[in-house]
C-alpha cells in the first residue's frame, strides 16, 4: 500500500534549528537582573550591607572556586560515564599537597603538587572503576577513606616538629599574590560605598570581582572556559562525551573508551586537587585537617544543578559560594538571607501556580511564609545554624531542580569491554 504511514515515534516534519541563540542568553540576563534587584531590595530593607558588599562578593567568588573545581572535576568524570564520589578525597589530597610543597617551595610549586596529588587520586579511582569495574560509588567512598587516613598519616609524619606545623596542620604557606583591575576596581568600590539602591549593589559586585583576585581564581575561570571548549568544540571532547552517552556505540567506531575514561577521571582528580590548592594556599594559607568540609560533595551538587554543563555549574558554584561567604560573615547576613529566601520562594510559588502546578506552588508559598515568620521573629541566626546554610541550600536546590535534568546516558554504568550493550 502506498498510503503514508506514520510510525509511532515519528518526529514532527519541521525541526527548528537548534541554535543556542539569543533567547537563551536573554533569559539568563533577565534572571540575573532579577536576582540583583532582589538582593538590592533586601539590602535596603534589612540594612545588611554585607549582602552585596564587595567584601562579600569577593569572598563568594573565592569560596566558589573550590566548589566549582570539584564540580568541574565531577563534570569531566561523569561526562565520560564514571561517577566520582571520591572528589572530596582528591581535594583533601590536594590540600595536603599544597601545604606540604607550599611551605617548602612556595605557593606555585604547592599548586602544581596539589594538582598532581589530586590526579593520583583520580588515577586510583580510574584503575578501580575502569579496569576492575568496581562499583563506582563504592570506589569513591573507599578513596575518601584512604585519602583521609593517608593525609593524617603523612601530616603526622612530616609536619610534627616543624615550626608552625603539627599533626593536623602544615606550616604557613607563603602567599601567592593577587590581581586587581586598576581603575575599575577603585571606581566600583566608590560607587558601592554610596549606598544607592541597585547601582551601589552592582558596584559592589563589580568591585568584588575585580579586586584582589587570586591567581588560582583566574586559573579556575580559565579551566571552566577551557573545559567548555575542549569538551564541546573539539574531536577529543566529542569522543569523551560519547563514552558517557553510548560507550559501546563509540567503541564500534574505534573510540578507545577505556582510554578516554582514564583521562577524564584523572583530570577530574587534578581539578579537585586544584580546588584543594585554593583552600590551602589562598583561603587558609595552611593545610588543615578537615578544611574541605564537604565541598567535594557540594561541587557534585553544583554539577547536577548545572545540568552537567560548565556554565550552569559555574552558576551553581557561585550560588553555594555566596551562601558560604554569607555564613562566614556572621548571623546577621544569614538572617537577611532568610528574607531573601522567603521572597524568592514566594515568587517561585506564584510562578508555579501560574503554570498550573498547584501542589508545587502551594508548598513553595507555605514554606515562604514559614521562612518569613522565622525572619520576623528572630534578630539573628545563631552561628551553628548559619553554618548549615550551604548544605541546606544544596538540598533545596537538588530537591527543586531534579526533574528537568538530563545526565549523560551511560553515567554510572560499568563499561565492560567487548560486551554487547
Amino acid at each position, binding site marked *: 500500500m502506498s498510503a503514508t*504511514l506514520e510510525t509511532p515515534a515519528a518526529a514532527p516534519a519541521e525541526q527548528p534549528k537548534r541554535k543556542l541563540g539569543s533567547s537563551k542568553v536573554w533569559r539568563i540576563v533577565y534572571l540575573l537582573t532579577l536576582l540583583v534587584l532582589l538582593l538590592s531590595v533586601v539590602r535596603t530593607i534589612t540594612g545588611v550591607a554585607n549582602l552585596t558588599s564587595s567584601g562579600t562578593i569577593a569572598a563568594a567568588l573565592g569560596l566558589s572556586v573550590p566548589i566549582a573545581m570539584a564540580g568541574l572535576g565531577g563534570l569531566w568524570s561523569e561526562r565520560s560515564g564514571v561517577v566520582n564520589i571520591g572528589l572530596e578525597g582528591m581535594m583533601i589530597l590536594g590540600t595536603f599537597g599544597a601545604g606540604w610543597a607550599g611551605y617548602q617551595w612556595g605557593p606555585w610549586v604547592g599548586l602544581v603538587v596539589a594538582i598532581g596529588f589530586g590526579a593520583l587520586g583520580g588515577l586510583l579511582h580510574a584503575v578501580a572503576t575502569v579496569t576492575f569495574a568496581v562499583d563506582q560509588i563504592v570506589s569513591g567512598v573507599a578513596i575518601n577513606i584512604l585519602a583521609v587516613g593517608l593525609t593524617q598519616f603523612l601530616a603526622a609524619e612530616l609536619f610534627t616538629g616543624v615550626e608552625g606545623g603539627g599533626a593536623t596542620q602544615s606550616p604557613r604557606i607563603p602567599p601567592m599574590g593577587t590581581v586587581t583591575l586598576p581603575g575599575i576596581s577603585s571606581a566600583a568600590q566608590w560607587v558601592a560605598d554610596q549606598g544607592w539602591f541597585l547601582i551601589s549593589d552592582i558596584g559592589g559586585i563589580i568591585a568584588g570581582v575585580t579586586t584582589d583576585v587570586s591567581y588560582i581564581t583566574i586559573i579556575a575561570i580559565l579551566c571552566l572556559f577551557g573545559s567548555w571548549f575542549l569538551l564541546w568544540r573539539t574531536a577529543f571532547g566529542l569522543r569523551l562525551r560519547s563514552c558517557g552517552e553510548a560507550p559501546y556505540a563509540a567503541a564500534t567506531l574505534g573510540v578507545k573508551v577505556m582510554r578516554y575514561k582514564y583521562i577524564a577521571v584523572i583530570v577530574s582528580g587534578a581539578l579537585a586537587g586544584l580546588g584543594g590548592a585554593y583552600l590551602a594556599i589562598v583561603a587558609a594559607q595552611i593545610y588543615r585537617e578537615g578544611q574541605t568540609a564537604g565541598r567535594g560533595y557540594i561541587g557534585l551538587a553544583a554539577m547536577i544543578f548545572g545540568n552537567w554543563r560548565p556554565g550552569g555549574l559555574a552558576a551553581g558554584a557561585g550560588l553555594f559560594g555566596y551562601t558560604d561567604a554569607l555564613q562566614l560573615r556572621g548571623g546577621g547576613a544569614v538572617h537577611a538571607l532568610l528574607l531573601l529566601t522567603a521572597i524568592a520562594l514566594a515568587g517561585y510559588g506564584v510562578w508555579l501556580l501560574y503554570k498550573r502546578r498547584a501542589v508545587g506552588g502551594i508548598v513553595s508559598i507555605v514554606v515562604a511564609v514559614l521562612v518569613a515568620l522565622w525572619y520576623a521573629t528572630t534578630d539573628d541566626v545563631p552561628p551553628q545554624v548559619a553554618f548549615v546554610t550551604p548544605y541546606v541550600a544544596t538540598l533545596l536546590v537538588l530537591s527543586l531542580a531534579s526533574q528537568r535534568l538530563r545526565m549523560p546516558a551511560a553515567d554510572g554504568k560499568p563499561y565492560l569491554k567487548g560486551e554487547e550493550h
Partner: protein
Amino acid sequence: MIPISTDTSAAVPPAVELRDITKTFPGVVANKDINLLVRRGTVHAVVGENGAGKSTLMKTLYGMHRPDSGTIALDGQQVSLASPSDAIDRGVGMVHQHFQLADNLTVLENVVLGSEPRRGVRLDFAEARRRIMDISDRYGLDVRPDVLVEELGVGERQRVEILKVLYRGARTLILDEPTAVLVPQEVDELFGALRELKSEGLAIIFISHKLDEVLAVADEITVIRRGTTVATVLPTEVTSRKLAELMVGSELPTPETRESTVTDVAELVVSGVTLVDRSGRELLADVSFTIHRGEVLGIAGVEGNGQAELVETLMGMRRATSGTVVLGSDDVTSWSTRRRRESGMAYIAEDRIRHGLLLESPLWENRMLGHQTQAPNSRGPLLDIKGARKDTQRIVDEYDVRTPSIDVLASALSGGNQQKLIVGREMSSEPTLLIASHPTRGVDVGAQAAIWDLLREARAKGLAVLLISADLDELIGLSDSLKVMLRGRLVADADPATVTPEQLGSAMTGAEGAA
C-alpha cells in the same frame, strides 16, 4: 559440497571472501568452516535462525574479534582485522541491529564520532555538515544533521546508521536484521536505498531471518545453520519454504493446535484502556478485548506499537489513564502489581534477563521471584525456604530444565532453560491468566517446542492466555483468536485457522483487508 557459483568473466575481485572461518568461545562452537563470497555491486543475504552463528560471523568480518582459523579477504587482499577501526579503514561498515547511536548527541556528532574533520584543534562542524549533506543527497537518505538523535523515528535512525558507514568510505556494508523494526513503507525506502548503493558498486551483506524480504531484495543467499554454511543459492532457485527448511535442517516444527478448548467464561475483560505518556502521546488508545478461559488470544504487531505498554498496563507496572481491566470478577485497574499477581496473573516477560530473573541468585530464589508472597515460597511474613527448594526441584524435573542442581546461579543456564524455569514457576502459582510476551525469543529450537507444548497445556487446563509475539507462525499456530495492534490500537481481527502470514503482515503495517 557448497555450491559457490563462480563468474569467470569477473575482472573485479570479490568484495568479501571468507574461507573456512572457525570461531569458538568457552564451551561453545560459534562458527565452523564458514565460507562466504560476496561480489561487488550485489546484495548478498545471509540467513539462519536465532543462534545459528550469523552475528558471530559478522563480528569477525567487522574486526570485533579474530577468528580462530580461516582467512578473510577484502577486495582480493587477505587481511587480518584487529579492531573495528581496521575494518573501517578497509572499507567495511556495519549497521547494527540495535542502533549504536547516542540519544543525547546530534546526528552530526553521531556520524562524525571517531573520524572528525578538524581545523587545528577545533572540530570543523561546517565541513562535517557539508560532507554529511553531500552523502545524504547523493543516496537520498534525507538526514537532518543538527537534530538530537532521540527525536528521530526508527526509519530515520537507520538511515543515520547507514550514513555513518558511508561517511567513513565504506564500500562494503553489513546490515544486521535491518528490517526488524521497520514498517513496510520504510522497508521499501530501505530497499530503494540499497539498490542505489548497489548501482554505485558497493557490496551489501544483508543478514535476516525474514525470508520473503530476503527473496525480494537479495541477489544471492547464503544459509547458515548450527554455525556452518549449508548452502548458497540464488533467489530464483528457491521458495521461502525451502529456505526455511535449509535453515532448520528438517521438518519445520509446527505450533499448530487442533481442538478448541475455549469456554465462554470471560477471564480477562479489558475495556477502553487508554495510556497517555507525559508528553501527551497516546501509547494505548481505547484498547478493548476479552479473553475467555481456555482461550489463547494472540496479538500481532510490529514491535513498538504498544504491545509492551499494554503488557505493562495489564501487569500494573503502568497505570492506565482511562479504561478498566477486570480479572475474573475483580476490577483490578488500580491494583498494585503484587496484588494482581496474587489474584492469578502470571507473566512471562519479553526480556527475561531484565524482568524475569535475578541473574546472580540461585535457581530456587528465582523460583520465588514474582510469587514471594504465596505458598510454597512463604508462610505469612516468613519465607519457606525448604518448601521453595522442594518445589524448585519439582519444576526442574517436570519442565525439563537442564541444570546440575537448583543452587546454580540463574546466569549459568542457557536461554532456553531459563525460559523453561520461568514458565514452570509462573504456571505453578495456579494462575487464571497467563501473559506470555515473546515467550520463545532467543530460545533454541528444542526449548521452543517444549514451551509451545507448555502453552498448549496451559490452555487445556483452562487458563486464559495472552500471547504477544513477533513470530507469525507461532501466533497463528497457537492462538484461538488473533488481533492486530498498530500504533496503540487494536485495528484488526483475524481467524488463525484461515489467515496467512502475508495477510497478517499487511494488517500489521496498516494495509487494508486482513481476512
